[in-house]
């Protein structure tokens, strides 16, 4: 066993120039293939890849100056906010009164902070230690429940919410309808602003669709800004341009390597056959060859890994690896079959033309 390993290593030393050429060829070729593919990939695809959104937000566009409000629309839309959807509005009067930001939260407050329970009615929360036990809203006192600042799971761009003095007044269900109706009675635009500021969990596609459909058909004067180019991979580009290019580059690499390696392969095949005929075991001979040959592939893979070219986020890394394994497997199978021949004298011939 060890003797065969040593023989394999000796083969490497004996054919060091050839060994070096093969390894360098494979490494450089893979670098070229990966660089070319990655460059195109970054150029075309990366700008379109947005960070996966956890929260879907909307940009309201008003198409009328007078925005009509009626309670029926409000009651119909309130179902959206039962779960996975929330809207937020800073209360000017309460903020002024308490000297710290007070937010009115409509709907599922657990999106903002996991400590907020999604339950019917009115509840008030503040980051602990809040130094605030009760808060009076519209003449009713509400107890302040503590939540932890570290539980705030929120969206970039709303850094204000993580200010430690924030107070959240959470309305859900009937209480939400009542308070919005109360505020919209004074100023009907508030209803549209609350709807326009809605956040929906991005994974709840149905709710997002229901919400936009409802607003576009039932809330007059309010629309949402549209986008023609939503992020994400352009699969037609990947499959009709990048994949053929990567494939043809790797195929070029495989074929060129086979051409280069063929001379060595035939020499080895003849040597190993002589060993076999002189009584060597099949497995020993094969092991010796695989040490020599595996080292080329192994060193190439290691080199590619060290210079961090194997990027498995895209299909480029897998394609390069697959092509290396195709080379590895095809030659390994070829030599094993050649040495298993019943008529080994075939292998002793000179160059096969």
């Amino acid at each position: 066993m060890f003797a065969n390993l040593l023989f394999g290593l000796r083969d490497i030393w004996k054919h060091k120039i050839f060994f070096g050429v093969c390894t360098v060829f494979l490494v450089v070729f893979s670098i070229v293939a990966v660089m070319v593919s990655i460059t195109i990939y970054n150029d075309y695809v990366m700008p379109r890849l947005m960070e996966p959104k956890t929260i879907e937000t909307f940009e309201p566009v008003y198409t009328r100056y007078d925005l009509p409000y009626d309670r029926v629309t409000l009651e119909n839309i309130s179902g959206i906010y039962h779960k996975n959807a929330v809207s937020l509005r800073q209360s000017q009067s309460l903020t002024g009164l308490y000297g710290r930001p007070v937010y009115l939260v409509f709907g599922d407050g657990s999106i903002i902070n996991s400590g907020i329970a999604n339950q019917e009615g009115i509840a008030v929360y503040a980051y602990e230690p809040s130094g605030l036990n009760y808060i009076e809203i519209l003449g009713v006192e509400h107890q302040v429940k503590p939540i932890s600042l570290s539980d705030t799971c929120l969206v970039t761009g709303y850094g204000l919410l993580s200010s430690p003095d924030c107070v959240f007044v959470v309305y859900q269900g009937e209480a939400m309808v009542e308070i919005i109706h109360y505020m919209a009675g004074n100023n009907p635009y508030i209803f549209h602003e609350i709807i326009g500021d809605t956040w929906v969990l991005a994974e709840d596609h149905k709710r997002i669709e229901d919400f936009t459909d409802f607003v576009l058909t039932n809330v007059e004067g309010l629309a949402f800004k549209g986008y023609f180019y939503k992020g994400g991979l352009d699969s037609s580009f990947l499959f009709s341009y990048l994949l053929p290019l990567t494939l043809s580059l790797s195929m070029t690499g495989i074929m060129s390597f086979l051409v280069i390696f063929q001379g060595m392969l035939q020499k080895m095949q003849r040597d190993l056959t002589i060993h076999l005929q002189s009584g060597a075991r099949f497995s020993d001979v094969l092991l010796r060859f695989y040490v020599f040959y595996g080292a080329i592939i192994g060193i190439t893979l290691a080199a590619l890994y060290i210079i961090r070219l194997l990027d498995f986020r895209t299909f480029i890394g897998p394609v390069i690896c697959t092509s290396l394994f195709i080379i590895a497997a095809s030659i390994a199978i070829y030599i094993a079959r050649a040495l298993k021949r019943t008529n080994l004298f075939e292998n002793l011939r000179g160059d096969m033309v």
Partner: protein
Amino acid sequence: MISNNRQLLINFISTLISISAIMMLSYIQGKAMARDPNAFPFYMGPNNVIMKRNTEQRVIFEDIIDVDKDTGVLVISRDEDSEVIGVYDPEMVRAFENTYSGAGFTRYFSYDDYVNKTKAGILVSNACDWEYTSENISELLYCTDINSSFNYDGRTKEVVNLASLETLGDYVYLDYGDRQVADRIIKRLQDSGYRRQTLGYIGLLKSLFGSKEFADGVMTGGLVIYAFFGVASFWHFYNDRKKISIHFLHGGNLKKMTGKIMSPFVGLSVLGTIPVLLFSFWQRKTLYMTINNTSLLMFLATHVLITSLMYFLAFYSVFTMIRKSERGDSYVR
């Protein structure tokens, strides 16, 4: 030397290399063309289509766009040298750029505007005059600053409701999220005498040598795969050195042997350009390749020339190696 399997393999490599090279070149070319200032009018996306009026007769909005069915597109139209652009934007993709929107005092074009042909409009100005009215704008929706995408070339002053204009302009710019609708509008425009404008074509050589960006540099560097072809063909002959020395020992000189070796290679290379041509035609259909026929043929000719030269040089170096060495040295071993 007759063409054997290995000869075919070398030719196959050459074909693969030319496919890779033409894709890399078309990428460089595409980038060079995208740098054209007119490539993305009004900062539209890569889908944008530009149509130019080709007849004297002018068309009206209703003939081209059905407000009830044609949503999912953005249509901008203007006359040559006009400061007024007409906008049809049912998806609100251009609403309130760089502008504060407030309920009750600003608004954007609505469905009703397109139906009723209201003379609503947006003013491109850094200093907003809320009392502004003009021939095209009787109701000012809001003002947008001069960096707005409506003003991408600095020539726009008024952005008005496309439906309120008497006719469409000389140019119609289109961007879309719904391809079917866009195709419908393009078809109607073509029937009314508009013609689709294509980007100015930049030749292959010009884009190759005029490239300045790093990414293009990497792609140009990708052309070193030709060097790999040289390496592969060198080893191809090196592995065949015994055969070559036998021919040499029996009186084969460089001229004769080159002729025997090169003719099948060049022949097969020329044959190998057929799949490359077919591949390029397919690629052109997918719109990622813009290369025209002249450039394509030029490229293929250059490719055959370069690979043949490398093939010859590889043979030449192996041949001189054999000629210099002791006679029969590698033959005997």
